[in-house]
């Protein structure tokens, strides 16, 4: 066995580029194992344990790139290495071509765009706090798509931002829509009178899409990052968002989406919204209706319900189009007739909020024990995330699945593998999946997903909920049509899809 490798000094690429490159390199002829990583001490350790280490790598630092290939033919490896090195160059040409819009620092970006008012960060978490602070010092609002920022840094940034009247959305804020402009993972929705503040990324995407698809629109959708509503952060961004919507003349209805905030934060929110006459609707996933009693806030049960209530308060519709129970039961029955084996549901999510919402719905329907890697209060934690137990609902966007690879909304390979495994598993009766469209997400999802779904359909019926709009770059309508033609049950909201799955499980048990 031969190992060929090179330390490329002083080159930096973002993780997505490295992963794409690693994937391409691993597919080169004659390459049995390979790695393309930043030359950090941790990575060197990993390379050593993977027996992909060369002496020359010891001089690499966190500022360098390591490419290493393993195979049986040294000559072929050598050629593959040269090809790999060439892969790094198109980027340089690209920067030559688009030079006017590209810079290498915030400082020089601001000389090109002196009136910039928002800095959108998606660089590695360990670097982002310092850079975000620089942006705040330059009077820019900040959105942190990046995760892995310490709680301490989050508090520091948000406190500093608040004192200057600047938003710090995130860290781990996947989505926002500001003045109608989708930021990061967001959808092309209509503009309208509904303002949203959400501590949940896919939750925000789902409600804004559903509202838009119901014919209403969004004034602003402010993401806060999941930790904002914890005691330590104190809801700094959430409260700024609520206040902004209260003061915004375009916003007629306010919609809040998150897991239940810490009691202190909840009190502050309740106090704050007492100052507005606008209707406020809240989906605090997992909270009871009683918890909102005497707060003046309208209770929503799930994401679809929240979207419906918001639209209802704009006097658009009176009845929810999402929960025609008789219709759902009928579809559940037809799914059952197609189920040839097994008795359990396996739900594989790319959106964390959906994973949580589905468990809540299954818990409430009483389908039996539910297991998850991110369990609700009534679910159970999986011991091994790669081994499903009974009804299993997985969030494949959690760290244990995403280390070293892009988010499952961009890269379907991990989930595709799991879909086939679960479909063939004799225990599995139904598969439930989400498909999130919009900016940031996979631009041609069916190309990667459909072959897998077709194969899986030979073993199990599949329910897919599609989050998106017809204006999204992928086009929701076409995608839903193609999925349906393939024989997949397609729902336009996750709450419907999960309810449907739950009803089918109950029918199987003879309980409905």
């Amino acid at each position, binding site marked *: 066995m031969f190992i060929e490798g090179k330390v490329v000094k002083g080159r930096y690429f973002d993780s997505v580029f490295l992963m794409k490159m690693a994937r391409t390199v691993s597919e080169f002829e004659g390459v049995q194992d390979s790695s393309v990583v930043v030359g950090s001490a941790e990575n060197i350790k990993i390379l050593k344990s993977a027996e992909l280490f060369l002496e020359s790598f010891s001089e690499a630092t966190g500022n360098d790139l390591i490419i290493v290939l393993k195979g049986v033919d040294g000559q072929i490896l050598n050629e593959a290495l040269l090809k790999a090195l060439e892969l790094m160059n198109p980027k340089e040409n690209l920067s*030559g071509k688009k030079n006017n819009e590209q810079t290498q620092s915030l400082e020089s970006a601001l000389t090109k765009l002196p009136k910039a008012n928002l800095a959108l960060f998606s660089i590695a978490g360990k670097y982002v706090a310092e850079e975000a602070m620089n942006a705040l010092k330059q009077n820019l609002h900040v959105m942190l798509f990046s995760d892995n920022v310490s709680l301490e840094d989050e508090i520091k940034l948000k406190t500093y931002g608040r004192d200057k009247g600047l938003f710090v959305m995130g860290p781990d804020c996947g989505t926002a829509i500001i003045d109608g402009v989708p*930021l990061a993972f967001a959808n092309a929705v209509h503009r309208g009178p509904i303002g949203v503040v959400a501590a949940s990324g896919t939750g925000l995407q789902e409600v804004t899409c559903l509202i838009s698809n119901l014919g209403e629109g969004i004034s602003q959708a402010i993401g806060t990052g999941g930790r904002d509503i914890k005691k330590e952060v104190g809801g700094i961004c959430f409260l700024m968002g609520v206040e902004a919507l209260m003061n915004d003349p375009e916003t007629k209805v306010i919609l809040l989406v998150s897991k239940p905030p810490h009691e202190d934060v909840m009190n502050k929110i309740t106090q704050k919204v007492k100052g507005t006459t606008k209707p406020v609707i809240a989906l605090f996933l997992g909270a009871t209706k009683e918890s909102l009693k005497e707060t003046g806030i309208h209770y929503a049960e799930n994401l679809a319900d929240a979207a419906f209530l918001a639209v209802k308060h704009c006097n658009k519709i009176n009845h929810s189009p999402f929960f025609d129970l008789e219709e759902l039961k009928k579809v559940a029955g037809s799914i059952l007739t197609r189920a040839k084996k097994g008795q359990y549901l396996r739900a594989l999510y790319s959106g964390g909020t959906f994973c949580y919402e589905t468990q809540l719905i299954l818990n409430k329907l009483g389908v039996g024990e539910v297991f998850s890697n991110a369990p609700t209060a009534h679910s159970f934690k999986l011991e091994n995330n790669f081994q499903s137990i009974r009804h299993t609902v997985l969030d494949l966007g959690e760290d244990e699945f995403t280390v070293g690879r892009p988010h499952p909304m961009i890269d379907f390979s991990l989930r595709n593998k799991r879909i086939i495994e679960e479909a063939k598993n004799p225990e599995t009766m139904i598969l439930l999946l989400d498909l999130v469209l919009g900016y940031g997400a996979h631009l041609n999802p069916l190309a990667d997903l459909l072959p897998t779904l077709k194969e899986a359909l030979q073993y199990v019926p599949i329910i897919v909920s599609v989050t998106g709009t017809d204006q999204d770059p992928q086009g929701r309508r076409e995608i839903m049509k193609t999925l349906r033609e393939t024989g997949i049950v397609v729902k336009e909201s996750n709450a419907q899809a999960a309810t449907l799955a739950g009803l089918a499980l109950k029918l199987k048990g003879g309980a409905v």
Partner: protein
Amino acid sequence: MSQKLFGNLQVVNIGLESFNLPFEKMNIPHVQVLWRPSLVVSSEAKNIISNNKEKIKAANELAISRLQKGRPLLVGMGNAIDVIPGMKKNLILHAGPPITWERMCGPMKGAVIGALLYEGMAKNEIEAECLAKSGEIEFSPCHEHQAVGPMAGIISASMPVFIVQNAEFGNFTYSTQNEGLGKVLRYGAFSSEVIERLKWMEKVMYPTLKKAIENKKEKIDLKNIILQALHMGDEVHNRNRAGTSLLYRSLAPDIVTVAPDKETALAVLNFMNGNDHFFLNLSMAASKAIIDPARNIKGSSLVVTMARNGTDFGIQLSGTGSQWFTGKAPFVDALYFPGYSVKDANPDIGDSAITETAGLGGFAMAAAFAIVQFVGGNADTALNYSKQMYEITLAESTQFQIPALNFRGTPTGIDVVKVVEKNILPVINTGVAHKDPGVGQVGAGVLNAPSEPFSKAYEEFSKHLER
């Protein structure tokens, strides 16, 4: 019409480029930052430097104003021992940061041997080597004696040197006469033909040139030649064809006037004409003359020296006095002459990176399309080298211009803080020496300075500031 949450949205996107898609579709003004992490330095140093931003800025403004004002003139010539401060019989000056005989690379050792033969201090190679390691010979960087030398950069006591004076501040710098290409001392060659040529340069060329320079009514303004050369396709480090031609034009009548006979005049003129790099040693001395007044300014993060001895790469900062910060000299990512490869190459060597330090050389690559193919690349590559250097410099030259960038001033004055925080290393345009003495140049290329000297300098610089 619509309400604006942040005012008219304008976005700086730092990270995933795909996030620009909606901005492009909706005509939202945006700029992409191709971000990279800073060089590895302590957070303590970062904090101190961040807290002293204003002071550093003021100090750098002073440093840059001096750099911009510099007016290097070619005022005369002399023998090293008579004009270079601290020069003595048993002292040999060399390129780059300080180094001992033991650690010198092949070409530098060869050049030292050659210098000892030239000075008549040794009869042959073995004697010269014994003398060099005996401790009787002292070695010192050119830079510590107001001098600069290309490649090995060897200057010994009796060598004739050009004298350049910065008319604005009065400071002097010195450099030898360029020997041409092939088997030459600066690449470590010391055969008899090398020594004979050096002797001819001392006995015949030097007196003629010295008189010619002195014969001029007005001193030759090197800044003027350099700025014209930039308009003519030189970057005055790796390409000096225009600079050499301009100097030749300026001196030719005086050489003819002062030469003892026609043959001497012809020989001197032919020597200059036959060596496209004749002007290099003057562009280097001029660069140093321009930068030196910006030394020793408290709180300034300006890089005042980048120099290599073929083993180490060293830099000095204005705000940290005469201290050197060094790292391993890198190999050049070069195009090699037929028959040679990277296996033959010596690590980067020479004081010539003083041109980049002054905003010329690789920093002015966009002015020198004529050599981009020689060093590997195309016109776009050349433009990008220069454009990128604006990220790490403090100013744009008020004198030296790049026609292809709409006569924008060259990126001038390297800021160690920007280098470290942006992780963009200075680009240097250079020739490559064979690792064995006396073979000569084996290729040419472009390289980035190593990161280590800059990280070290940044750390030390922070210690010179208030906590």
